[in-house]
């Protein structure tokens, strides 16, 4: 008996080590796949060890659930790369669901005899789990566009939301003092379920990278709380690692959007929605045809391409790859400038461009590429807007003032592929478009890039 228990503990110990190594190996693309294998090995060991547990009286439901989970998991692992943000949000929801359900069962198994500390972490587990569950489902729905993407805001939104959270915490405190009042438990679970929905309602697409990171962090913390309840070091550590990862990403994202971290924590997203550009008279812009654009690109020696969410929407990444190939063949130096919040989740653009077979050493982060723009002949912007807006640097009255941007306006020529003159997510006009050096290329990103590629390769047969 004791021997099996030790075996289980040892599998957990090894799994913990493998998990930490897994994240360590992820630090560079060269070793990253080893990280996945080590994570898988740790997971197999830990699950295998758990199945040895003497207290298990029937394997029937476990087996059915493992098979069912695998059947659901395989298609979720095979989604298109453009669908990765919503898949990620959905997996946060599943993780949080697991934690919430386990927490709920643990409460009813232990009640009414729950020690205060146990009740405290149990409440934390269930509150965090429940709000992450509905919040992530909402985020996935918005990303999949089954829910309206426009942020919905109303007066006193923050007060309502914070009030709900306060009530949930007050109930948790009451349960800590009186764990025998089991009828309070469902209430404590339902409030954060509603809170999760309310938290995501005011959030628009451009805030998604921050929100997904934050939900990631919550999912990790709720799992760590579950580790406290079950007294499992393995779970505490895995949850802490996940929580730390989500936290780092949230801080990165909020910095990249020039929002304070408290601003992010309290869900005050998408507050500024000035309906600019509406009544304004159209200022003149210079536009160009694919032929002209191809001519300028062919004559350049250094080109930086700046992709944004628009590239993902138009599914233009493979055409961009063809453009990259055509220009590289002509001896043009082509690099990509990636803003941290480009796209709908951290690292989104890198994954799309890697899928299109663009070598990762050509994908440069904002800090690394910004120094290059003054020596760049052409900055080609594909489906990005606010992250290139020089008003963030110069115009103190601009709502995005202070946000770090890609300094595309320092390049000799700027070309912007855009459907029309509509303002970006933040509803802010982009003075970049009215510069003398800027050429607007109006059209669908995929078609326009395709036409440029035809022009470039046509002459060479």
């Amino acid at each position, binding site marked *: 008996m004791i021997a099996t228990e030790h075996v289980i503990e040892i599998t957990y110990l090894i799994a913990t080590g493998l998990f930490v190594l897994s994240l360590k190996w992820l630090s560079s*693309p060269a070793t990253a796949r080893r990280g*996945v294998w080590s994570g898988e090995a740790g997971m197999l060991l830990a699950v295998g060890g758990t199945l040895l547990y003497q207290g298990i009286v029937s*394997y029937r439901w476990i087996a059915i659930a493992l098979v069912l989970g695998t059947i659901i998991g*395989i298609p979720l692992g095979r989604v298109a790369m453009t669908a990765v943000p919503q898949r990620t949000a959905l*997996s946060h929801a599943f993780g949080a669901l697991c934690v919430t359900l*386990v927490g709920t069962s643990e409460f009813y*198994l232990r009640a009414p005899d729950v020690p205060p500390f146990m009740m405290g972490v149990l409440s934390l587990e269930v509150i965090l789990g429940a709000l992450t569950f509905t919040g992530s489902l909402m985020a996935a729905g918005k990303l999949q566009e089954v829910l309206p993407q426009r942020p919905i805001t109303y007066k006193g939104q923050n007060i309502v939301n914070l009030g709900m959270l306060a009530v949930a915490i007050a109930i948790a405190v009451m349960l800590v003092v009186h764990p025998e009042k089991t009828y309070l438990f469902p209430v404590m679970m339902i409030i954060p379920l509603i809170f999760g929905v309310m938290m995501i309602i005011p959030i628009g697409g451009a805030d998604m990278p921050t929100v997904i*990171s934050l939900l990631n962090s919550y999912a990790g913390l709720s799992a760590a709380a579950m*580790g406290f309840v079950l007294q499992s070091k393995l779970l505490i550590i895995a949850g802490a690692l*996940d929580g730390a990862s989500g936290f780092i990403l949230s801080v990165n994202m909020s910095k990249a959007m020039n929002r304070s971290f408290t601003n992010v924590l309290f869900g005050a997203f998408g507050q500024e929605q000035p309906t600019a550009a509406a009544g304004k008279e159209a200022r003149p812009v210079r536009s160009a045809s694919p032929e002209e654009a191809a001519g300028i690109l062919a004559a350049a020696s250094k080109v930086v391409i700046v992709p944004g969410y628009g590239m993902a929407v138009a599914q233009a990444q493979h055409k961009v790859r063809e453009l990259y190939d055509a220009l590289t063949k002509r001896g043009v130096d082509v690099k990509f400038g990636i803003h941290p919040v480009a796209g709908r989740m951290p690292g989104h653009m890198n994954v799309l461009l890697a899928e299109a077979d663009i070598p990762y050493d050509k994908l440069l982060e904002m800090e690394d590429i910004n120094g290059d723009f003054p020596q760049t002949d052409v900055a080609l912007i594909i489906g990005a807007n606010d992250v290139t807006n020089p008003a963030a640097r110069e115009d103190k009255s601009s709502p995005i003032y202070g946000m770090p941007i890609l300094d595309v306006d320092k390049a000799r020529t700027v070309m912007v592929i855009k459907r029309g003159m509509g303002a970006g997510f933040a509803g802010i006009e982009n003075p970049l478009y009215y510069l003398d050096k800027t050429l607007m290329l109006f059209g669908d990103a995929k078609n326009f890039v395709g036409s440029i590629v035809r022009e470039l390769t046509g002459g060479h047969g």
Partner: protein
Amino acid sequence: MKLDLLTSLYVFMLAAFIGFEVIRRVSPLLHTPLMSLTNALDAIAVVGAIILAGEGKSKLATILGTIAIVAATSNIVGGFLITDRMLKMFKASGPRKP
């Protein structure tokens, strides 16, 4: 094996520090795979669900435990699969085959 509160807190604190140090080094290039990998690792919560569903202490625990296993397993399988798929795509530029 029993853990007291203080030991749990020590474990949590140290793991959080390790997490910060290790994850800070992850290149922003790989932030999407990072998120899907940590998500898969986080689904280790399945061990708690397995015990719950297997012990059969109450009908509620068995039902909720079973659903929890399904949710966590789909994260494990899907998370590792998609992370590996993404990482396979990241290639350095080198001599490309014609």
